Structure formats: structure tokens, C-alpha cells
């Protein structure tokens, strides 16, 4: 049996209490949400917090709703809640498509949106989704609330802008009309982390790409995206050539490392394939041509 190093356990009854508990322990406490990233790391003794602050009681952070011209997703929303959300299905198909291939039902029943983003695993699927959609995270601390663009949220692998005594309470995504979105992932086996994955949204005005977002994961893309590829598409007409060119740029600009999931040449190639597929399907959806 793999067992963690000794730790203290505290259960937070409110966001304020969670923040207070974090503040009291200096940098040695960690929030535990679904625990599906943190607990394995503790059992392997790669993480050894002195105190765990359990926020599973904060059910007020578990929601998906339309709020003004944005969709607001509470940080404690489980993967399964995202997968099954009617609101998200209506506006962004990318969510369900990504969630369907995140881990397995056991993990999805517990793992949370906040935990996924804060874990900052370089292969996290939701990081690519939120990067594509240009969402923002709402972060609370004892001194107040701030909001951070998700493309500025991750500082590197396993590193975010969230401070020691801060908690992500919500993630927000703008609602965009005439938009289609899609997610494409290649894994070695059901439930495996991505070899590479790409997501996109495309917003159309007639045949012109009004706005576009591209997200990628597991391939070392800066901030899980590629703005150069987005710029190449934005404002131009939709065409297979333009999509291929953007996909090619993504393959070139990302920075994958070789591992047992594949060599670098394959991963670059795969990024291009998946970005092209995600963009193509997003366009079809934006046009109402595809389900």
C-alpha cells in the first residue's frame, strides 16, 4: 500500500474559513478538492503538505450558470457536472467533448474544475479548454477578490498565480453568438492522459472568422495556446487552407517533449492534425452544419 507522509487534516465550512486556515499554516497547507491529483502525489510522497484543508463541504461553489454575458462555473464543480451541464452543452460543445475523455467516471465524479486548473499539470485537458475559450479565474483571499485571465494563470508546470492563502472560487467564460467549438484528444487508451489534445472555438460573421480560440495540452504550448495561429485566422475567410496553415503553426510553435507517449516529431504532427480537426468541426458547428 502506498501511504502518504504524516499530515494534519482540517475541514473548511466556508470559503472564508478555508482562507483563514490556509493563512494560519503559512505555506505548508494545501487545499484538497477532489483529491485526484493531490492524493496520488502525496501517496508517492512527491507532495507532503503538513496540513490538508478540505473544501469538499463548500457545495456553494458547485454550480454552472449564466451570469450576464458570461457562463460562471463554481470551482468545486465536479468533472461530471461539467460533462452533464445543459448550459455548457448549449453554448460550448467543447466542454462535454473534453470531459468525456478526462480519466474515467470514478475520477470525474470527484475531480473538480478548480483542482484541475490549480494542479497546473501540463497535460490537464480543462486548461486547454479554458485557454481556448479565453476564460478567467476568480480568486479570493483575505483581502478581497481578483480576476485573472486564464492565459496568464499558469506560470509553468504545476505553478499558478494562486497564492498560498488564496482560493479559486469561480471560472468565467464569455458567451459568444454564432460560435462552434470542439475538442480532439489522442490517448493511448481510454482514461489515459493526452498524448496531445487540442480544442477550439470559432465565431463567424458570415464567412469571416470574427474570433477564434485555440487550446492545446500536453505539448508544452505556452499558456496552453498559440496566439500566432489564432491571429492568422482572425478576420479572414474560412477556408481549409487557412485552417491547415493555423494548424501547421500550432505544430511548429508548441514545445513537446519526448516521452513514452511519443517522440517530438509525432507530437508536432499530431498537434497539427488535432488543431485542424477541432477548427474544422468548430466551423461546421458555428454554421449549424454539424451536431
Amino acid at each position, binding site marked *: *500500500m*502506498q*501511504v502518504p*507522509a*504524516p499530515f494534519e487534516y482540517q475541514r473548511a465550512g466556508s470559503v472564508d474559513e478555508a482562507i483563514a486556515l490556509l493563512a494560519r499554516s503559512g505555506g505548508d497547507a494545501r487545499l484538497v478538492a477532489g483529491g485526484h491529483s493531490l492524493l496520488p502525489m502525496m501517496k*508517492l*510522497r512527491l507532495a507532503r503538505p503538513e496540513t490538508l484543508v478540505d473544501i469538499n463541504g463548500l457545495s456553494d461553489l458547485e454550480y454552472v450558470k449564466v451570469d450576464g454575458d458570461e457562463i460562471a462555473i463554481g470551482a468545486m464543480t465536479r468533472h461530471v457536472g461539467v460533462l452533464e451541464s445543459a448550459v455548457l452543452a448549449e453554448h460550448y460543445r467543447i466542454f462535454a467533448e473534453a470531459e468525456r475523455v478526462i480519466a474515467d467516471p470514478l475520477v470525474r465524479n470527484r475531480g473538480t474544475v478548480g483542482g484541475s486548473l490549480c494542479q497546473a499539470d501540463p497535460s490537464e485537458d480543462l486548461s486547454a479548454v479554458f485557454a481556448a475559450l479565453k476564460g478567467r479565474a476568480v480568486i479570493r483571499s483575505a483581502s478581497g477578490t481578483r480576476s485573472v485571465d486564464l492565459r496568464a494563470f499558469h506560470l509553468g508546470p504545476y505553478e499558478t498565480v494562486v497564492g498560498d492563502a488564496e482560493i479559486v472560487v469561480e471560472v468565467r467564460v464569455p458567451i459568444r453568438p454564432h460560435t462552434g467549438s470542439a475538442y480532439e484528444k*489522442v490517448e*493511448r*487508451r*481510454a*482514461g*489515459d*492522459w493526452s*498524448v496531445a489534445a487540442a480544442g477550439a472555438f470559432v465565431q463567424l460573421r458570415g464567412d469571416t472568422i470574427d474570433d477564434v480560440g485555440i487550446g492545446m495540452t500536453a505539448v508544452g504550448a505556452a499558456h496552453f495556446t498559440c496566439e500566432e495561429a489564432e491571429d492568422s485566422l482572425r478576420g479572414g475567410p474560412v477556408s481549409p487552407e487557412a485552417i491547415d496553415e493555423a494548424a501547421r503553426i500550432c505544430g511548429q510553435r508548441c514545445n513537446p517533449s*519526448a*516521452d*513514452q*507517449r*511519443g*517522440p517530438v516529431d*509525432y*507530437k508536432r*504532427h*499530431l498537434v497539427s*492534425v*488535432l488543431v485542424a*480537426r477541432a477548427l474544422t468541426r468548430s466551423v461546421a458547428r458555428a454554421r449549424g452544419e454539424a451536431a
Partner: protein
Amino acid sequence: MTTTDMPAAPSSDTVPRSPAGNPLGFGHMLRKEDARFVRGQGHYVDDVRLPGMLHGAILRSSYAHARVVSIDTSAAEAHPKVKAVITGKILETLNLAWMPTLSGDVTAVLATDKVRFHGQEVAFVVAEDEYSARDALELIEVEYEPLPAVVDATHALDPDAPIIRDDLEGRTDNKIYDWEAGDEAACDEAFAKADVVVAEDLVYPRVHPAPMETCGAVAHMDKVTGKLTIWTTTQAPHAHRTVYALVAGLPEHKIQVISPDIGGGFGNKVGIYPGYVLAIVGSIVTGAPVKWMEDRSENLMSTSFARDYHMHGEIAATKDGKILALRVRVLADHGAFNGVAQPTKFPAGFFHIFTGSYDYPAAHCKVTAVYTNKALGGVAYACSFRITEAVYLVERMVNCLAFELKQDPAELRMKNLLRPEQFPYMSPTGWEYDSGDYPRALREAMRIAGYEELRREQASRRAAAAQPGADPTAPLMGIGLSFFTEGVGAGPRKHMDILGLGMADGCELRIHPTGKAQLRLSVQTQGQGHETTFAQIVSHVIGLPPEDIEVIHGDTDNTPFGLGTYGSRSTPVSGAAAAVAAQRIKDKARVIAAAALECSVDDLEWEHGRWFVRGDPTQGKTIAELAMIAHGSLELPEGVEGHLDASVVYNPPNLTYPFGAYICVVDVDPQTGQVKVRRFIAVDDCGPRINPMIVEGQIHGGLADGIGMALMEVIAFDRDGNNLGGSFMDYLLPTSMECPSWELGQTVTPSPHHPIGVKGVGESATVGSPPAVVNAVLDALQVRSADMPFTPAMTWRALEGRPMRPDLAIE
């Protein structure tokens, strides 16, 4: 005493049923053991909790090859909950630092001089609970002096390769042995006459059996009685008992090995691991029972791996595709110690059955085994003592030949398969195949698959893909075949032993006065359903309901000696023992019936579990009635003892040879390299099927194994010798999502020498399915050569004509 004939295997729908609705003999019935498993009431080693029990944990090497300079255990010993810290130095004083392997080598229990693989056992902590034991591991300080590691087996014999086994006197290289089989001269001659010669390099990479339950033990040395009781994850409790007696010098009558419910073995639980020995030592040192259970990473990194064969095959044929000869060179990576579990006279296992299912006169193989800085093992994962590697080799070579000759691989196989009239067939490397009708099995598989139609679909898809403007994402369709011949049920004791212990199995059958029976077996189920299958075997012979026959196994104090369950040997060997024991009961019951009915034994006839007077069926006695009489006061004939018991040791005259024809259909995404198995057709012939449901379950599991090995399972090592498959995030097992709905078929060719004709099926599908999947993927890619596993990256690189080696880190 006269011996009656063993009943012929009936077809299951004509078998009468017991009051509980179970077949009185062969046929579908629910597994008796599942009543406890589906309720979560199984009892595994980790469920054993004894008063005062302590917990052990092992410190493992983080280097693949390093000198152990010093080990400081003082801080660990100072931990308030630690009871003992054991190192190799301490074991040396007990003469236990090294132990013999099952292949005549030695292996370290705890490292003394050097560590030789990543994950090797270095120290053992015994503490009050498992948390403290693991905490204390972090307090042990080991100073290592890193050494260059031998990672790539193909360089193990380079002149400048570091010597791994400098503990063995006079070692100047990393070679373990050279071994050959077959007739080299005859083979050369056949090659000289051939129109076509195709050569191919094949890697069967290192994989792991990965049973759901990891390995472990609870050892309890009772200081007062001097008795050692060890509950342990073993597929071979009796063999383990004898080995403990030999290794530790413990008196064998004072050792009880108990193998409770076992959560999968697949060969992983045949050997004796350092952890078991350490639990025993821990109990001796502390005077308390000690539990040691490894975690998942420890299981994957340090216990018996499988395969790791680097093969070079050459096949010779006429230009119309008649095979003439097969020549093979193997480089076998055995890891740091030669710990292969196989019969002594077979250093490469049964690999030299590689001529497969085909009719050709000449074959030769040469196997060179080497040490590398990796964990030991080699025979595991349902491999039938390396028939897995043999079948993979020949089935890939036949496909390569078909590829070069541009012949349909089914047609080429049909042309070369052994004919029914050739059985019993003596293979060019000395195996006597007992029975078979191979063309019938292949035809049946092709019929179920709709083979011609599949080939037509493939042709039209390929034609469409060649059109201008064709969809570049259209899947590439591939069809792959394999035909396998297994050799199981080891084995005849004059040829086969493990550590000098002949591979015959004991069995005891006792019919209680009220007609309820107990059957004691030496083999040990790990999920195969022995408690049901063996009850059905006895029921088949004497007609008692299977629910009235209790199967007792897994406890050396309560069962007769035998070598255990692996190599698909349980039904071929112990199943025969059970049938013979039941037959003896039946024969004895006849004599008792004659006495009771006051007639001659020759006047008695047998039907449905009852002896009756010929011509007067009302005058008869059932086995249950005869059991009561046997225990009663009736005067028995001269020389007939009372009671109704039998005890048998079965020494198989030959192996049994199950076989089968498999067809796999895949679709490959040409852009991403993802492989989807669309269909899998498996026609198996394992002789009569005792419980068809259990047989199908064994086949389903083996086919999933095959998909796993072909598409994802591999343990690779990086340049420093770090194991890259040490968790289920890295070592992938297939799920239901990767498996199609299996399409099974069967033919039935009984074994002529087995008492009830059955052949064993536990490993057939694991042995037979990988080449079918690989042949299908390569057929889809229209590429001749590449090694499994076909992960998306490996497949894409194969399609690009730049295949990668699966055994090394991807860089």
C-alpha cells in the same frame, strides 16, 4: 479390481441436472466461488490480521547499477514505532542474503555488494503499522556509488559492457547461456534449396502480468512450536514450502504455506520474492507475525516480468508458398538474475515449439541469454513457458512470407497447416503433438469472420482511398490472422522438474458417509474457477452433484503435494488426477455394490451415478448410498477396505496441445495512428469443455491481454536503467473500451492421452492473440515490419517507415 472405462465427454445439453440445477458433469454452471466474491467476502492475504501483527516495508534501489557503499539505519531504528531494521549485512550473518532462483542462479534477498536493478530490495523495516514502516524507510541513508548500467540487451555482450554479476566467481561477461534446438545442418540444407528466404527482426518487449492483487505475505514463526505459518500470494504453495525448507533450513513438516484467495497470478506468483523471505526473517527476529504487502509500483518494478525476447527469424519457402524451414536466433534478456520459472531441462522454456502449426521438416534455433540491469523474471503472464514468444515468432514470420509472396495469409496458412492424419505428430524440434484438426479450426474462424467479404471490403476501401480527392482521414482497414499450437500440462516427470521436483500432481478424493465429497488438490486457483471445474470433473465420473463436492486447495497442511497452477497445467495434470481418483472411487463402489446387491461385479451396469444389476434396474445403489455402505457394517469382500476414498499421483504421459485460429479486424486512423479493434474472432480447440462459461471467460481475458500487449503494454527503460513502467499511468492495461465484443467459436478434438480428453485453456488466448492483432495493424498500414505495442505514436512511425524500438525510452 477391474477398471471401467472413463465416460466419454457428453455434449452439455444431454447431461442430467442435479437438484440445484447444475449439470452432473460437464456443462454451463455458475461458479461456486463467486458467491463469496460477488459479496466482497473473498479472503486475500491482505485480509489476514493476526494479534500483535507487525508490518514490513522494503527500501528499494533508486539506481539500476551501483555499488552500495554504506547503509545507515540508526535514524530508522530510533523511530518510536519501528521494531527492526534488516539489511543485507544482517542477512549475511544468517546466511540468507542470497537465495537460489528457480533457474539455478542466485538472487539477492537484500543487496549487499551492489544493486543491480532499479527497484531492487535494499533494506527491510518492521514497524507497528504500515504508515510508520514507510515513514522509517525515508530515515535510512544509503550511500551509492553509481555504475554504468546495461540497459540495451543488444549491447550486453559488448566487450566494454560493465559486468553485472561480479558476485559470481570468474564472470567476465554478461552471458547466461547459449542453448540450441533442432537440426542445424538439415535447416541449412533446406535453406539452400529454397526459392524464397525472408528474414525479420522481432522484439517481444518486456511486459508485466500485473495481477489486480499485488504480491505479499504474512509470516508467523511460532517460537514455542517451532512452526512457520505463511499466508502468501502463491500459485504453487507446495513448491514454495519445499523451497523454504531448502533455503532457510527450516524443517518441512513445520512449515505451512497457505494461499488464500488469490487476486490473479498469470505467472507473477510462481516465484519466491525477497519480500516473502523478509517477512519470515522479520517474524523470526521480532517474534511477532509480520505482514508485507507490496504496492502497485513495487509489483510492476520488481516482480516477475515476462518476455523480453529479441528474435531474428528466417523462413525458407518455395515460390508458391510451401514452407521448407525456419531458423531463429534469440537474444533473451533475463535481467540481473536468472530467475526464470521453468522446468530445469528447458532453459528457454518451451520456445523451441516455434515451428508452430505447420508442416515442414527443418528447424533450428539458438538462444543466447544475457544479464542486464533490470528486474528478473522472464516466464510469466500466461505464456506457457515461452510458447507466447514462439507463436508470435512463427505467426509473424508466416505473415512476412505472405507479404513478400503477395499471397493471402489465410491461404498461405491453409497450404502449410498440419493435416489431421499427421497426428500424433513429431515436430522437427522434438514435440509430439497429441491431436488436432487444424484446417477445420481455420475454416471455422474464416466462416465466422466472413473472411472473403472482409477482404472485399478492404479492397474497395483501398481503391476508394487511391482516388484523387479521397478523404485523408478515412480509416485504414486491416485483417490479421494467427494460428497457434500450445503445449500445456507440464509435465512428464522424467522430462520435467522444477528445482528437482517432478511435475506430477497429487489429489485426494473422499466421499463422506452421506454422499458428500471433498476433493483435495495441490493446484491453486487465482481466479480460474477451480472450485467449480474440479467439482464438475468428479461429478462427470461418479455422478454426484457438483454442489456436493467441496474443493479444498491452497493449504499445504490440508492438500497433497503438487507443483501448482501455471502453464495451463491445472486441468491437464490435476484435472486428470481428479478424474482418475473419481474413477477409482467408482471402481471401488462397484465392488461394494456387488457385495450389497449380492451379485457379481460383472453383472453390474453404470448409469447416472448408480450401479445396478443388468436387466433389473430397480436393483441398484447410487454412489451416495454406496458411500454409507462403505462406512457401515456390511461385510466387504476379501481385500476391500472400508470407506470410499482415493488418493492419486498423476504423472502426465505427454503435454496436451490445444490450438486455435484467430482473426482480428482493425481500423487505423492514418493521421493520428490510433488503432481501433473492430472485431476479434477466436476459434479455440481445447478438447471437451468442462464448463463452457469458464472456458469462455478464460478466452475473453486472454484476448484482452493480447490486445493489451499488441497495443499498449510495455516496460521500457531509459539510458540509466530507470524503469519507465512503474505505475498504471505508465504501464497501460486494456479496458473494455479497447475490446470489441468477442466472437468465439470452437472445434473439439479430445486429447487421446488425457483421461477425460481435456487440454487446458488458461493461456491459449494470451498466447495466440497478440500476433493476430499485430498482423492486422501491419496489414492496415501495408507495412511488413514494426514491433508492438502499437500505441498511436508507434503506429504512426511505422506508417512513416520509421518504426521505433519499444524497449528503450522514446527520446
